[in-house]
């Protein structure tokens, strides 16, 4: 961290090239292909929404955060991830409000980076979902030229977006849940479906997240736990009723599961620190996702699954505390 003079240990010392800003900006960099794919799919609305959400996050961090906390890039990540989890047609002012809320109430209020209990980007999204439920579930269908905006992005602040019914589509999960219409696996994998900006291109997210996992910037156990749990549960349920329940691959590649598992659940601040804890955390998210998707009122449950498990992280950490070598009992904090 930034205060090495406080760490007094015996030599030899091992230098670590990683730092908070380096990791954070690597995560932002790894999202570039995801953003590019999303822009290719949804058009110029994508950079606009991302910029609005990031501006909200960064300005709030600048105004209320600690001095110099902008440089570590965590506010930028929050903004970009929040933007990726929004529908492309969302009015920009709503994206801005979401970014400001995520940083203000999700991070700064707890004392800044490292102190927050919940993932700020998801908190911002949860707020938007509760505040503007209609705008947050209006998924634009791609019609006309690439250059047309996906929705009423440029609505005045505080004004409702003008929704043209003919231009909205449904998400694969919504189709499956409410109309029992499955979506082709190829469409799900490359992202040519309805949905939030960054969640549709499953394969791209998988590759980008895999790169981060290889560099050890995210704990691979968390997404692995989520994927395994969801896949196994989905396979079991499909065996019970193949019409109502989608198969494991469709479950994995639809909705925000890829983005959530790779980028949001693995937030270093809000995930467990132990390896066993990471598995428990991931599996808990997987179970909750399946429960919410199949039996909840909503079509998608990744956001609430992650937020719920975020709240359990302190308990997971405590329960999975490793035993010190030679000690009979667990270390007491």
């Amino acid at each position, binding site marked *: 961290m930034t205060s090495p003079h406080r760490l007094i240990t015996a030599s030899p010392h091992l230098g670590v090239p990683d730092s908070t800003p380096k990791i954070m900006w690597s995560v932002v960099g790894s999202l570039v292909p995801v953003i590019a794919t999303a822009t290719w799919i949804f058009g110029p609305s994508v950079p606009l929404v991302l910029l609005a959400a990031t501006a909200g996050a960064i300005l709030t961090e600048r105004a209320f955060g600690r001095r110099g906390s902008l440089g570590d890039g965590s506010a930028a990540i929050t903004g970009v991830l929040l933007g990726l989890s929004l529908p492309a047609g969302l*009015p920009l002012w*709503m994206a801005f409000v979401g970014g400001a809320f995520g940083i203000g*109430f999700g991070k700064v*209020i707890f004392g800044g980076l490292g102190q927050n209990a919940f993932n700020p980007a998801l908190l911002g999204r949860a*707020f938007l979902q*509760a*505040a*503007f*439920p209609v*705008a947050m579930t209006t998924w634009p269908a791609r019609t006309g030229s690439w250059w047309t905006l996906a929705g009423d992005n440029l*609505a*005045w602040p*505080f*004004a*409702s*977006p003008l929704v043209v019914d003919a231009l909205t589509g449904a998400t694969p999960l919504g189709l499956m849940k409410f109309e029992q219409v499955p979506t082709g696996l190829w469409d799900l994998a490359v992202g040519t479906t309805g949905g939030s900006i960054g969640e549709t291109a499953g394969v791209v997210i998988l590759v980008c997240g895999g790169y981060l996992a290889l560099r050890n910037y995210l704990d691979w156990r968390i997404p692995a736990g989520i994927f395994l749990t969801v896949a196994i549960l989905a396979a079991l349920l499909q065996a019970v009723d193949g019409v109502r329940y989608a198969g494991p691959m469709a479950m994995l590649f639809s909705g925000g599961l890829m983005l959530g598992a790779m980028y949001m659940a693995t937030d270093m601040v809000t995930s467990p620190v132990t390896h066993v804890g990471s598995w428990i955390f991931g599996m808990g998210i997987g179970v909750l996702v399946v429960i919410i998707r199949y039996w909840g009122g909503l079509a998608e449950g990744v956001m609430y699954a992650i937020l719920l498990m975020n709240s359990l992280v302190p308990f997971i950490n405590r329960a999975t505390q490793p035993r010190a070598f030679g000690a009979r009992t667990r270390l007491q904090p």
Partner: protein
Amino acid sequence: MRQTTPQMDFLRGIWRENPVLIQMLGLCPALAVTNTVANSIAMGVATFFVLLGSSLLVSTFKRWVPHEVRISTYVLIIATFVTIADMLLEAVVPTVHKALGAFVGLIVVNCMILSRQEAFASKQPIGRSLLDAAGTGFGFILALLMMGAVREVLGNGTFLGISLFGPNFEPWVIMILPPGGFLTLGLWLLVLSWIQRRRAESAKVADWPAGVAQRRAA
């Protein structure tokens, strides 16, 4: 207690010891029925009336109330005034009465009212008890108005039913729902404690010895 002046009795409850914003009492109605300004005013006025009436009676009869049953006596007195307030609201503003629902009846268990009886009215003369009740009641109305104004403007785009942003306003649904109450209360507490800190810093009040003493005691 002796050295306080009548003005202090009155003013204390409005700002420095505001029941909701400082003492954190009576939070249930403050969170539940402040989704519009009209509801806030009705709730605040009803509570004000109950508080004033109860303080008057409790202070009047303080010598004849046995110590062992004083709380139940206070609750009986409060309940009497709550019943009156409930019937008055139903007769005068039936729509608001309907919107407030069970929360009018729940004024009985508003700990802010009981705390004023126990801490003040049962020990002080009638005049000062009335001043204290009026100050606390105004403080309660003020706090409810602060909450209701934010929640109605954001959640409905109106203030007292008057549209502020035109017909195209997108309501922030969450602000009318219970989470909006918690968010608004938290925001006001944030703003107030920020103001207080600014004031303390500018007055060069060294508050750390108090903190240290507290930590030692704990």
